[in-house]
């Protein structure tokens, strides 16, 4: 009888939970315009999948799209072939086919799932994945694990097609900055008394700085910009299981009803910590508890994008809505000044001896008015003046001078009465030590990148340029990462949780995402315990698609039965970051028609320029350059050129360059060798040697941000040619341009770009 009972319990505990997911194209309207999105079972976000530890998950994915898809179970421990990375752990789910993911649920916590195919995650394919603890679990926490809980997925929406967003990012289009109002042009710099800052910024070859890359039309909490949970009453406590399903947005979480108690991250329990706010990085999850202080009022849970341009709200409770204070706008020029101080002339970042890690020191605080004071009426912090000093000497001195506690620059918790969560504050309630006698493999990575060309990589190599990293089953892998790029990167490891070495010793927290800020160094470690090919990558979708990642693979592991043709799969996997991005521009003006057409990827650039006059005397010419970018900052680009021109000059008229070299030919076809180099102030210097022995040196600068929407440019070369232009940006693809060209004279026209 007893055995039967036990057997029954066993069966009950090990039940199979089946979900059927129908992936379909849909049309959504978040902004007043109808746009394409992808819905699963008719909804965005995808349905919340709930399991209990010990269950077996059976998830049938019915792909009813016209394209292939996949689903990745983010943060889950599972057999590699269920991990859902197309061309790595499985072949993509083809249109109108069904794929079964089946795996045992061997953990608990708040996780989420999303498409790992292309940019589908941006347009709706994200959802909550909740695994409850068993009641009998020894780690079950009364007062926490028995609270009512609400799964929440944060996300963002853009009316632009994600492919277009990706392309625009690679073309360094500043349209997003215009939409956000963060152009940081010279006019704005002068107004903010930061002209010197802007000059220095361009001298150091930087474009306008920002904390995020993409302009979004809406931010969403469970698919809605605003919503209310009226079932909650005064005195209630509620657990919010929050996953950031945004493709590229970090969110600030704040609450109008008091403090936020953080109790878990990335599905792993934490010792409860009270904070005023926290930043949830792309793809992280946090479990928090908030209480509803009184009846007949609902309190705003405010989710603000890191750039603070927009927000989404969830009102907890019933009745009149108590608003939360909105986060004040960023002081961008302060950020620019800070960046200037950190950037060396060679493009490396200089942490000035501050060993930064775990988000404790946040350089961005210089931009936060709530920490470092409002613009114009800045609080006179002793530390305020110090940070401008880029030599670091004065700083050290002052640091000692005022040392009577743990004062630290950029430590927002020390500088204000607002408590912000950082990784050093996370502490696991249970010991998390790795197996003791296992061999240790230590790996070092530098996160590298280049905003101007939107190249993101590890150690200046993208996925397609590297081999898989071999690890051995049983060994402890330690990863030391330094972020030498100017953006923060949420680094995610598939299939494993890692310990974040954060000073909590045996109780170091377990996570599978770590958001690493510029100049930070973080150390992670995990025990290699599941064979397979596991992706390790930046979770900002557009960074991942640009190749910022690696693949870990186990030595001598069994073949993945789903990958029948590994060579083909590898080529397809690599094709993501090898992709070329198209940029085209054409100016239809009164004095002629000129334009460019450019295909670029990580390393290569193929570009054609044309200038077509309306008369023979003005001539027609084209120049085509095929070049390769060299070095981390990609300032150097040697190229091969092909020029052709035709024009009719008067008899005896000839052109002479400043070297006294002449050419008289009206019909000239030339092959050339040359090199581009980006000088300070973002001026491109070009030297070109033609087959006939002629030499041309040229200086050029495009897109000088004069004001929010006005751009200027110039070109001058040793053929005595010159050009200056001014352009007013009308919209994403159109502008009005006026220019003076030494060949064609003065012109006004319409500028089209793609």
């Amino acid at each position, binding site marked *: 009888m007893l055995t039967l009972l036990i057997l029954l319990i066993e069966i009950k505990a090990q039940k199979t939970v089946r979900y059927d997911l129908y992936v379909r194209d849909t049309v959504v309207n978040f902004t007043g315009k109808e746009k394409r999105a992808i819905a699963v079972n008719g909804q965005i976000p995808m349905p919340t999948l709930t399991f209990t530890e010990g269950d077996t998950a059976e998830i049938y994915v019915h792909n009813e799209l016209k394209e292939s898809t996949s689903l990745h179970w983010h943060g889950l421990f599972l057999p590699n072939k269920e991990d859902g990375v197309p061309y790595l752990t499985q072949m993509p789910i083809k249109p109108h086919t069904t794929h079964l993911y089946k795996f045992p649920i061997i953990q608990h916590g708040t996780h989420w799932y999303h498409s790992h195919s292309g940019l589908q995650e941006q347009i709706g394919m994200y959802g909550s994945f909740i695994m409850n603890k068993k009641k009998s679990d020894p780690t079950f926490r009364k007062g926490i694990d028995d609270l009512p809980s609400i799964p929440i997925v944060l996300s963002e929406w853009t009316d632009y097609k994600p492919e277009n967003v990706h392309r625009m990012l690679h073309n360094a289009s500043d349209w997003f900055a215009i939409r956000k109002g963060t152009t940081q042009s010279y006019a704005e710099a002068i107004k903010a008394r930061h002209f010197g800052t802007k000059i220095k910024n361009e001298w150091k070859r930087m474009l306008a700085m920002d904390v995020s890359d993409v302009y979004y039309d809406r931010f969403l909490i469970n698919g809605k910009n605003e919503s209310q949970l009226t079932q909650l009453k005064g005195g209630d406590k509620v657990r919010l299981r929050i996953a950031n399903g945004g493709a590229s947005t970090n969110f600030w979480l704040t609450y109008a009803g008091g403090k936020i108690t953080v109790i878990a991250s990335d599905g792993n329990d934490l010792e409860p910590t*009270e904070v005023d706010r926290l930043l949830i990085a792309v793809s992280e999850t946090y479990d928090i508890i908030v209480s509803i202080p009184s*009846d*007949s009022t609902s309190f705003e849970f405010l989710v603000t994008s890191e750039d603070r341009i927009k927000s989404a709200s969830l009102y907890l409770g019933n*009745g*009149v*809505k108590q608003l*939360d204070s909105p986060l004040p706008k960023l002081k961008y020029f302060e950020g620019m000044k800070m960046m200037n101080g950190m950037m060396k002339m060679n493009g490396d970042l200089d942490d000035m001896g501050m060993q930064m890690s775990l988000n404790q020191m946040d350089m961005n605080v210089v931009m936060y008015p709530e920490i470092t004071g409002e613009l114009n009426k800045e609080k006179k*912090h002793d530390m305020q003046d110090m940070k401008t000093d880029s030599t670091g000497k004065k700083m050290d001195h002052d640091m000692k001078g005022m040392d009577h506690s*743990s004062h630290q620059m950029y430590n927002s918790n020390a500088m204000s009465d607002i*408590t912000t969560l950082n990784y050093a504050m996370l502490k696991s309630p249970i010991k998390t030590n790795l197996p003791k006698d296992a061999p240790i493999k230590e790996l070092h990575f530098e996160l590298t990148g280049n905003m101007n060309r939107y190249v993101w990589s590890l150690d200046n190599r993208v996925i397609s340029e590297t081999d898989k990293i071999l690890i051995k089953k049983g060994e402890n892998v330690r990863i030391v990462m330094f972020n030498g790029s100017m953006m923060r990167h949420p680094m995610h490891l598939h299939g494993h949780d890692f310990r974040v070495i954060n000073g909590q010793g045996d109780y170091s927290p377990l996570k599978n995402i770590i958001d690493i800020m510029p100049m930070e160094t973080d150390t992670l470690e995990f025990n290699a315990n599941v064979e397979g090919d596991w992706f390790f990558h930046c979770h900002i979708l557009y960074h991942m698609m640009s190749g910022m990642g690696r693949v870990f693979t186990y030595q001598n592991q069994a073949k993945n039965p789903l990958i029948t043709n590994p060579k083909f799969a590898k080529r397809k996997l690599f094709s993501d970051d090898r992709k070329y991005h198209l940029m085209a521009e054409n100016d239809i003006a009164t004095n002629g028609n000129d334009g460019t057409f450019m295909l670029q990827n990580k390393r290569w650039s193929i570009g054609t320029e044309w200038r077509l006059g309306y008369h023979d005397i003005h001539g027609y010419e084209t120049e085509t350059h095929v070049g390769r970018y060299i070095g981390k900052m990609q300032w150097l680009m040697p190229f091969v050129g092909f020029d052709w021109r035709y024009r009719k000059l008067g008899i005896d008229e000839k052109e002479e360059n400043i070297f006294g070299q002449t050419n008289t030919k009206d019909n000239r076809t030339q092959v050339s060798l040359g090199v581009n180099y980006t000088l300070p102030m973002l001026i491109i210097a070009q030297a070109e040697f033609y087959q006939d022995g002629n030499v041309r040196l040229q200086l050029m600068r495009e897109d000088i941000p004069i004001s929010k929407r006005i751009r200027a440019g110039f070109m001058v070369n040793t053929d005595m040619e010159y050009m200056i232009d001014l352009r007013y940006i009308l919209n994403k693809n159109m502008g009005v341009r006026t220019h003076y060209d030494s060949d064609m004279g003065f012109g006004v026209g319409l500028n089209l770009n793609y």
Partner: protein
Amino acid sequence: MKTNKKNIILGVFIMLFLSLSLIVQSQSIKNAVTETFKVSGNCGMCEKTIEKAANKKGLVKADWDVDKKSLQITYNSKKTNSEEILKRVAYAGYDNAKYKAPDEAYANLHECCKYERSNTKQIASENQNDHSQHIKEASENKVVEQKKTNPLEQTYSLYFLLKDALVKDDGSLASLKSKELLSELNSVKMEALGGKEHAAFMKYFADLKTDVGHIAETKDISSQRERFTNLSENMYELMKVAKPPYTIYLDNCPMFNDGKGANWISKESSIKNPYYGSQMLTCGKIKETLK
């Protein structure tokens, strides 16, 4: 008779003018819907701020009545809605039928505009023209009794708010919180206190009131801070007897008062110094812990 005629002509003119202006007004806002909502406020300055926050050229025309504390809005119902308008009013600092202002926005109001905020959050039910989708609750008019475990709890929490104001270098907020603390001290239900607690309260009552009164009177933060030392001493003595149900920390700043040092009480273990505020926020150490 003549004057009468004159009056009639005048009357006609006035009517014409009025009807014209009405036409102009109704023309200026399309798809106009007019609604009236409760909006808190005090004075003429409030009126300006409220209307400025609500108005949007060609979309919203707002008029706030200082006596009735009500805001009449006429808006283009195809382009905006009362939620959007009232949200803007709340961000400007004014509680209303649908939104309560963020605490910071309220704190930033001019002194004369700091209307009394209702603690019971009752404004919602007074929506005069309620065709919103809110669930009407008959019970809403019932005053919600705050659950007090300790009759001194409100006193303590106001002390902590006063301390937080000093941490923020906000003299006017500190003064405001002291006023609230003063009235709370006067209304403590002593009969609900136990014997020991009652005795302790009687012992420190007068001193507490003196210090709080002084802090309330001024907005000068340095004299407030001087008084705060003594207030904290007495408050701590009281707390030692009438213990709050949570852990408190007696923190010490060694520098204040020409190096003689000063104490304060905090609910958090992290140091946020109310004697120097942002100047030396994390200066200090925990002297005693009371569980």
